[in-house]
């Protein structure tokens, strides 16, 4: 197979009314975990669908596990596992029945099928629940069952389309642990997500995708280094004072290599290193009535914002987004 488990070359998918993917190329090494990060509608799912042979590219091709998704889809299907965004288990049947049908469809027979079904159910922590109808499973259990069904044939390459969408924090972290275990076993993993934390936590490399194109690619560290410096957000109780505060800040910080601006109602100060600047800012704004001060270290969210001018959540740059920053901000030292 050489070094690459997946080589996507100029993948394009055009539907009647829109072009979902506009020429996506990337390579994933064997055993690597690769994340496609982008907002809803960016083309992540369509890309996964093309790589997993669910839909034919309008043009371009991808070599998955050594085979072309266009010319040899059946061979590709034998090597891959797909956990689609939608739930696919039959909820009228038990977890066990669902997994065993998957096992048999992938050619496992008799004892081997039973053993493998047991292995994946135990791996995902569902063994005790195998005899229950899937309809009685919780959201987290259903996700795990989806993964179990996709792993029963020990695929070399696993596609996870928004694996933790809609899960609570605990289930999400639990699922991450499973993904890490699979990585340790040498499975090549491609996942899509619009949670930057998920991409940062799980992946060796990230491709940021927007409007059907990859706008940046690299390790989470690489990408974060593209955002120059930290950002300090200052929110005033009276937004009409922003002009005056900006002026005052400019006078004090003008020579420190800072950039000043506003994002929605907040003032944003971009600096190489927040630590030395925050005290000066505090001094300036202490004359005004301040709602909050936040220091944001570079993260993938900021990288995305930088590259596309939009947030991953596609919310306008106003109060809701600002609140999100407050939640995610890491305070300076």
């Amino acid at each position: 197979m050489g070094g690459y488990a997946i080589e996507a070359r100029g993948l394009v998918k055009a539907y009647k009314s829109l072009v979902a993917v506009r020429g996506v190329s990337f390579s994933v090494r064997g055993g690597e975990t690769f994340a496609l990060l982008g907002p809803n509608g960016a083309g992540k799912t369509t890309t996964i669908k093309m790589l997993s042979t669910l839909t034919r590219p309008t043009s371009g091709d991808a070599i998955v596990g050594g085979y072309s998704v266009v010319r040899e889809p059946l061979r590709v299907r034998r090597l891959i596992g797909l956990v689609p965004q939608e739930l696919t288990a039959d909820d009228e049947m038990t977890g066990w029945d669902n997994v065993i049908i998957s096992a048999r469809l992938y050619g496992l027979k008799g004892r081997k099928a039973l053993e493998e079904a047991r292995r994946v159910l135990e791996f995902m922590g569902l063994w005790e629940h195998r005899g229950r109808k899937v309809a009685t499973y919780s959201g987290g259990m259903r996700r795990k069952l989806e993964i179990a069904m996709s792993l029963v044939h020990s695929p070399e390459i696993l596609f996870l389309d928004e694996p933790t969408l809609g899960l609570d924090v605990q289930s999400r972290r639990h699922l991450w642990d499973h993904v890490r275990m699979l990585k340790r076993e040498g499975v090549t993993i491609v996942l899509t997500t619009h949670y930057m934390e998920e991409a940062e936590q799980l992946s060796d490399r990230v491709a940021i995708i927007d409007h059907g194109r990859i706008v940046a690619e690299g390790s989470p560290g690489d990408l974060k280094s593209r955002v120059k410096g930290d950002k300090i957000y200052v929110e005033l109780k009276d937004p009409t004072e922003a002009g005056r505060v900006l002026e005052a800040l400019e006078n004090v910080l003008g020579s420190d290599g800072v950039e000043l601006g506003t994002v929605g109602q907040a003032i944003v100060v971009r600096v190489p290193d927040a630590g030395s600047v925050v005290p000066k800012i505090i001094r300036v704004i202490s004359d005004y009535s301040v709602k909050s001060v936040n220091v944001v270290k570079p993260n993938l969210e900021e990288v995305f914002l930088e590259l596309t001018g939009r947030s991953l959540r596609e919310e306008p740059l106003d109060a809701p987004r600002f609140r999100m920053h407050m939640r995610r901000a890491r305070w300076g030292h």
Partner: protein
Amino acid sequence: MRETLILLRREVVKWVNRRPVLLISIITPLFWILLFGKSFNLLRLLSSEDLPLPASIAEALRGYLSAYIASLFGTLDYFTYITSGILVVFSLFQSMFSGVSVVFDKRLGYLTRLLVAPIPRTSIFLAKVGGTLFRVTLLSLILLMIADVAGFEFKEGITVLDLAGAWLVVALVATGFTSVFASIAFHVDNQEVIFALANLVNLPLMFTSSAIFPVEQMPEWLQSVAVFNPLTYAADLVRYFLVGKEVASLAGSLAALVVFASAALAIGAYASVRGMERD
């Protein structure tokens, strides 16, 4: 083939698990044969005592009429007549349910799981056909056993071969119509479409065939429609095998049905796979 059997097993397990549905599937045809079939009493129509005619002439008239009805219906018992027709009609109805289940497999995401598996896509379609075959085989058997108790007049000297013949006919109907409904279902995303379609075609198919009433007494324009209706051939054949009513051409009717079922199966398989690969 292996994949088809794996998926067929799922169809069967799911169906058997749905006890209420199972019960309703049996009760509905029973309503038809017991309520409708028993209420239309051909013999009673003939047994009028006060014909204003000399006794000998009345007797001759009754004899003539019953012979005529027997030649038309193949029996003097309408219950027997309609039961053999209902076997065919419910095979059509069960075929529609397979179409609906295709739409649900799509909507509930199950189809995605199958489409990414390394299996021939025709096996997904064939499992639906097999599912209908399984259901109609079991339901027909139960229906016939109940009908037997309720007074179904099997032809004299009926053999296992006759029963097998009747089963084959019902199976051909199920194969043909499941192919039609399933292949359409693979192209639509809404089960309402299948219900609407079934409502549109099921009644006309039923009434333009010999399932409920003999074709011979229909107006000519209706007869010319009935000739193209697979259910006509099917109902005639089931009646031939179970009741002993003559058919004009046994081989011809069987051939017509085989052609219908195999053409539908081939086109259905092709169209279904196309539907699965639709974006």
